[in-house]
């Protein structure tokens, strides 16, 4: 009987467990979970803080599911993987043996890198418990400061404003979500945020969180010296893969655990998937990191199959994220290359949840095309006659067609004149062209049924 050990109980871990069970009815599956909840949806936490759903609704697997799959869950954390001994030492001193190991420990929010980061009132939107704490503290807080440049910080801003806090969003740059957005997209979102009562402070950076005698946040000190009073600080400066258990082992890693297309790490019988894995990408010929839910699911799926004795490559698709910020729908696909400054210090370069390293890149030679009608925009990033990326804000009818054209690398040279011209005519031409090329097999056919 094979003993499968899975470190982590998130999207990748739970998916792999389910997959292993499909192929191996008798193998022993053990999951090590640092959190006491069953697997839950991390992206769903954003909908909890805007009261779309109650907290417990994000839990995506019932305890019965674990029982039905004959998965044993051990609460704890891995201290060190010992590949040569085929076992994992836990923090509590116990050791767990394995025949096949999946490291799916995920990523966690990066703590604020300045003094006062541990004060009562510094909150994160990262775990279910953290979200509960955020909501509890938001109830008695009046003024909040949110720091961070990615989706998580923006989601937190929306949640705090929703709870009627005087919400201030501090950005180090002069634009929002600079890894992805261009100037206009940033302005569109900024307008929405202002409508929701958020005050945006550009070019503003926190140097220190200041606490009172009881250790509670009473404000932040800015790098330009001034004191800004507040009683809550939302931190969303990015996430870091949880790699402590593989540090100083023979398992090779860079920013994450390096795995091939079969999710195999450098040591035999060791696999990695999800936010902690840096997976070989045949398109860019590099190991890249994604902190995306669908990527974790797809990688967990392939890892499960391979661990159970199958052989399935995980071919990275085009990174894709659909999000809802302040009522504005945003779909990001492929290479977008925002206005990010590559030279900034490493501490500020953490990838944010809901992002991919690919998003912030651009093809070597590229051109872009643009259409805007009020709040609805479409931006295309082109590499020659192929689409490399697209960002759709507001009206979303082009989101699926663009994903399809990008994924299939459809030659769009017939669109050239429209792309140069831009505007609504371009958007229509793209839609028409997609319909024509659909014969090549569409991703989905979102056709509403007529009566």
């Amino acid at each position, binding site marked *: 009987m094979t003993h499968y050990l899975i470190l982590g109980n998130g*999207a990748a871990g739970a998916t792999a467990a389910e997959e292993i069970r499909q192929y191996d009815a008798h193998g022993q599956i053990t999951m090590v979970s640092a959190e006491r909840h069953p697997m839950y*949806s*991390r*992206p*769903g936490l954003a*909908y909890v803080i805007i009261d*779309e*759903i*109650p907290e417990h*609704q*994000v*839990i*995506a697997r019932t305890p019965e599911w674990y029982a039905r799959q004959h998965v044993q869950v051990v609460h704890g954390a891995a201290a060190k993987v010992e590949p040569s001994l085929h076992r994992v030492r836990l923090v509590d001193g116990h050791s767990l043996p394995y025949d096949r190991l999946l490291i799916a420990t995920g990523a966690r929010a990066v703590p604020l890198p300045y003094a006062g980061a541990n004060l009562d009132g510094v909150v994160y939107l990262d775990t279910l418990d953290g979200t509960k704490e955020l909501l509890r503290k938001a109830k008695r807080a009046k003024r909040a400061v949110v720091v961070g440049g990615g989706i998580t910080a923006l989601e937190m801003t929306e949640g705090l404003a929703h709870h009627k806090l005087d919400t201030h969003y501090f950005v180090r740059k002069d634009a929002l979500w600079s890894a992805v957005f261009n100037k206009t997209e940033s302005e569109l979102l900024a307008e929405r945020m202002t409508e929701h009562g958020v005050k945006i402070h550009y070019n503003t950076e926190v140097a220190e969180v200041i606490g009172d005698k009881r250790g509670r946040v009473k404000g932040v000190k800015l790098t330009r010296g001034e004191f800004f009073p507040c009683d809550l600080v939302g931190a969303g400066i990015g996430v870091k893969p949880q790699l402590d258990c593989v540090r100083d082992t023979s398992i090779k890693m860079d920013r994450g655990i390096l795995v091939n297309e079969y999710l195999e790490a450098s040591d035999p019988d060791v696999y990695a998937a999800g936010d902690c894995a840096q997976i070989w990408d045949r398109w860019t010929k590099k190991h890249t990191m994604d902190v995306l*839910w*669908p990527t974790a*699911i797809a990688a967990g799926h392939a890892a499960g199959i391979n661990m159970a004795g199958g052989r399935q490559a995980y071919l990275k*698709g085009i990174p*894709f994220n*659909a*999000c*809802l910020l302040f*009522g504005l*729908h945003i779909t990001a696909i492929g290479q977008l290359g925002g206005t990010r400054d590559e030279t900034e210090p490493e501490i500020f370069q953490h990838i944010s949840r809901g992002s991919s390293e690919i998003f912030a890149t651009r093809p070597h030679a590229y051109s872009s095309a643009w259409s805007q009608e009020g709040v609805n925009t479409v931006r295309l990033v082109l590499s020659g006659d192929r689409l490399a990326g697209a960002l759709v804000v*507001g*009206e*979303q*009818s082009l*989101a*699926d067609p663009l994903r399809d054209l990008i994924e299939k690398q459809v030659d769009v040279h017939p669109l050239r004149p429209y792309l140069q011209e831009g505007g609504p005519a371009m958007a229509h031409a793209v839609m028409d062209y997609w319909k024509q090329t659909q014969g090549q097999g569409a*991703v*989905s*056919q*979102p*056709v*509403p*049924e*007529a*009566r």
Partner: protein
Amino acid sequence: MPREQKKRPGFFQKLFGTTETTDLRTLAAHDSVVTPDPIRCVQCGVCGYNCPVGIPVRDYACRGKIVDHPDCVQCGQCIEACPRGTLRWGKRPGARPNGPAATEYAEVMNLLAETSSGKGS
């Protein structure tokens, strides 16, 4: 505490460019079934939370399975509520084109939708 009715348009409406509240009755038909695009699904559970008959829609959506639960009343609330545009109306596999029986069925569904859209207000 009673939950407020959704104020902003759902992803589905944005996806198809309808700016007014979508008239779900025009969408559900005899051979329609709630169909997920699993790559958009983040298993947040907003769909199941909005299901009036308590179908665990997420369990279908995340596995890319059509929601062929016998209790589904085709009200489309899960489609409306999904923040990521995961759910759409799709054709039920093996469905015949709309015949007279289908039209009759659609009429019944319209009445049902009418009744269910009155709830919560």
